[in-house]
C-alpha cells in the first residue's frame, strides 16, 4: 500500500471518528428530548412527587435543585474568588504555593462519591444534623471550589499587566488595586466560569445521595419562615434534588411510571444545564462588549 492510499484511508478514519462523536451527541439529545418532551407539562413541573402512585411531578425536586445550587454558590463564590485572588496575586513561588496547588488538584480530582462520603462523615454524622440542604451544599462546595479558584486565577492572570501597574503607579495600594481595577476587568470571565460551574453542580447527584438525602418533607410554599420544618427555605431539612430523583426512581422506586418521570426529569435537567451554558456564553460576550466597547 503506498503512502498516498494510507493517507486517504487515515483521513477517512478521522472523518468517521468525527461523525461518530457527532452521532453520539445527536443520538443522546434526540433521545432525551423526544422522550422527555411528551411528559413535560405544567402539571409535571408543579405537582409534588409520589412514592407509590403514578402521576407524580417534580415540583419539590426542581425547587431543591435550584435552592441547593443557590446555597452552594453563596458559599463557594466568595471563598473560591478569594482563593483565586490569593493564587494569582499574593502567592509567591515556593513550597507553600506548591502545596496549595497540590491541595486544589486533590480536591478537583476527588470522585464525587468520595466527597459525598466525606460529607456524610462530617456534615451528617459528626455534626448530628442528619441529611440537610446545608450538608449537601457544603459537600458541593468541596466539589465546586477548585473550579471557581482556577477560573478566577486564570481570569486575573489574563488581565493586562499595564492596568495593574498603572494603578500601582498612581500610589493605590495592592488590595485597592485588586478591588477596583483587576476584579472588574476579570469579572466577565469569572462570571462565565461560575455559571458553567453552576451547570455542573446542578446535575451532580453522587455527592448528594448521602448528604442531602433521598427524601423531601411535605413542603408548604406559603411558609416563608426559614426555621419551620415545612418551609421550603429551611436549610436544615432533607432535600432530594432532580438528579438524585432520576437515580432513585430508577433504582429504588416503587412508582409504576418510572420511565415517564425519569424521562421528563432528564429532559428538564438537560435543558437547565443547556440554559446555564448558553447564559454563560451570552452574558460573557455581552459584558465583554460593554466593557471593551466593541460591536
Amino acid at each position, binding site marked *: 500500500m503506498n503512502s498516498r492510499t494510507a493517507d486517504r484511508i487515515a483521513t477517512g478514519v478521522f472523518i468517521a471518528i468525527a461523525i461518530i462523536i457527532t452521532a453520539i451527541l445527536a443520538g443522546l439529545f434526540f433521545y432525551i428530548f423526544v422522550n422527555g418532551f411528551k411528559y413535560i407539562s405544567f402539571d409535571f413541573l408543579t405537582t409534588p412527587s409520589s412514592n407509590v402512585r403514578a402521576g407524580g411531578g417534580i415540583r419539590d425536586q426542581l425547587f431543591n435543585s435550584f435552592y441547593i445550587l443557590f446555597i452552594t454558590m453563596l458559599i463557594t463564590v466568595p471563598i473560591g474568588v478569594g482563593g483565586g485572588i490569593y493564587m494569582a496575586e499574593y502567592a509567591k513561588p515556593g513550597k507553600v504555593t506548591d502545596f496549595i496547588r497540590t491541595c486544589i488538584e486533590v480536591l478537583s480530582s476527588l470522585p464525587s*462519591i468520595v466527597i459525598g462520603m466525606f460529607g456524610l462523615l462530617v456534615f451528617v454524622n459528626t455534626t448530628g444534623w442528619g441529611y440537610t440542604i446545608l450538608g449537601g451544599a457544603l459537600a458541593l462546595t468541596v466539589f465546586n471550589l477548585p473550579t471557581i479558584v482556577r477560573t478566577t486565577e486564570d481570569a486575573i492572570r489574563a488581565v493586562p499587566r499595564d492596568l495593574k501597574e498603572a494603578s500601582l503607579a498612581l500610589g493605590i495600594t495592592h488590595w485597592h488595586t485588586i478591588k477596583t481595577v483587576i476584579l472588574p476587568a476579570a469579572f466577565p470571565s469569572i462570571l462565565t466560569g461560575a455559571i458553567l460551574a453552576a451547570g455542573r453542580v446542578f446535575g451532580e447527584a453522587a455527592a448528594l445521595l448521602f448528604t442531602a438525602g433521598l427524601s423531601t418533607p411535605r413542603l408548604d410554599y406559603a411558609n416563608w419562615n426559614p426555621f419551620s420544618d415545612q418551609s421550603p427555605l429551611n436549610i436544615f431539612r432533607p432535600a432530594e434534588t432532580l438528579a438524585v430523583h432520576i437515580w432513585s426512581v430508577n433504582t429504588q422506586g416503587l412508582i409504576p411510571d418510572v*420511565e415517564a418521570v425519569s424521562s421528563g426529569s432528564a429532559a428538564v435537567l438537560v435543558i437547565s444545564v443547556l440554559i446555564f451554558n448558553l447564559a454563560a456564553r451570552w452574558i460573557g460576550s455581552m459584558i465583554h462588549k460593554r466593557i471593551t466597547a466593541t460591536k
Partner: protein
Amino acid sequence: MEKLLSAQERLLKSKRSRLGGEFRGKFFVILCAVIMISAAIAITIFLGTKGLQSFTKNGVSILEFLTSTKWNPTDKANPAYGVLPFIFGSFAVTFLAALIAAPLGIGGAIFMTEIAPSWGRKVLQPIVELLVGIPSVVYGFIGLTVLVPFIRENVGGLGFSLLSGMIVLAIMILPTITTIATDAMSSLPNHLREGSYALGATRWQTIRKVLVPAALPSLLTAIILGMARAFGEALAVQMVIGNVRDLPNSILDASATLTTIITLNMGHTTYGSVENNTLWSMGLILLIMSFAFILLIRYLSSRRKLR
C-alpha cells in the same frame, strides 16, 4: 469640621483606612487559601482514619480484604470481606472504557487540529462541550433504558454487564479526553508540521511519525484524566452494571465496582457496623487511587517539561 482638618491629617486618615483595608483584604484571601488547604487535609484525615477502622477496630484482615473474592458481610456465622471482585470490576470498566474512548477522543482531536482545523473545530468543539454538560445520571438513565435492553436482545446476557458499564463510561469520558488532546495537539509548534511536509511526508505520516509522538505525554495525561474520572464515577455505572458480588467471566456478565457497592449499601447499613466500615475502606481505596492518578499525571508532565 471636615474642612478644618489639616491636609496632613486627612492624608494620614485615608492612609490608615487604606492600610486597614489592605490588611483585611490580605487576611480574607489568605483565609480562603487556608480553607482550601484544610478541606483537602480534612478529607484525607477523616476518610483515612474512618477507612482504616475496619482493619484496626473490627479486625478485618487487610490481606483478606484486598485479595479474597468472597464478599458476604451479612453472613452471621462466617462473614467474608473480600473486595477483590469490586476492585477488579473498577479497573476492568476503567480500562475498557479508556480503550474505546482514547482512540475516539484522540482521533476527534486530530480531526479538529489537523484534518479540518477551520470548520471541524467550530462544529466539534461545541458538541464536545455539550457532552460535558450532560449530567452523569442522565447517561446512566439512557444506558438503563436503551443500552441494557439493546445488549440483552442483540448481544446476549442480561444486559446489565461490564459491556454496558464500559460503553456508558466511554461516552462520559470522551469529552475529557477530546478536550485535553485537542489542547495538546494545537499547542504543538507549527514548524514540526512544516518540517515534516517539507520532507515530502503525507498528512498521515506527519501525524503518525511526528505529531503524535511529540504530543504523547499530553495525550497520555488526557487518557489518565479520563480514566480517573471513569474510576470514580458511581451512579451511571451503578445503574447499568448489575451489581453482583462475583468476578465476571466475560464482558457480558454482570459485575460491580467499588463505587457501585458503596452507593448501593451505604444508605441501608448501620453506621459503625463492620459492613459499613468496610464500605469506608473501599472509599479509602478510591481516595488512594485518585492520589495515584495525580502522581501519574505529575510524572507525565515532568517528562513533558524535560523535552
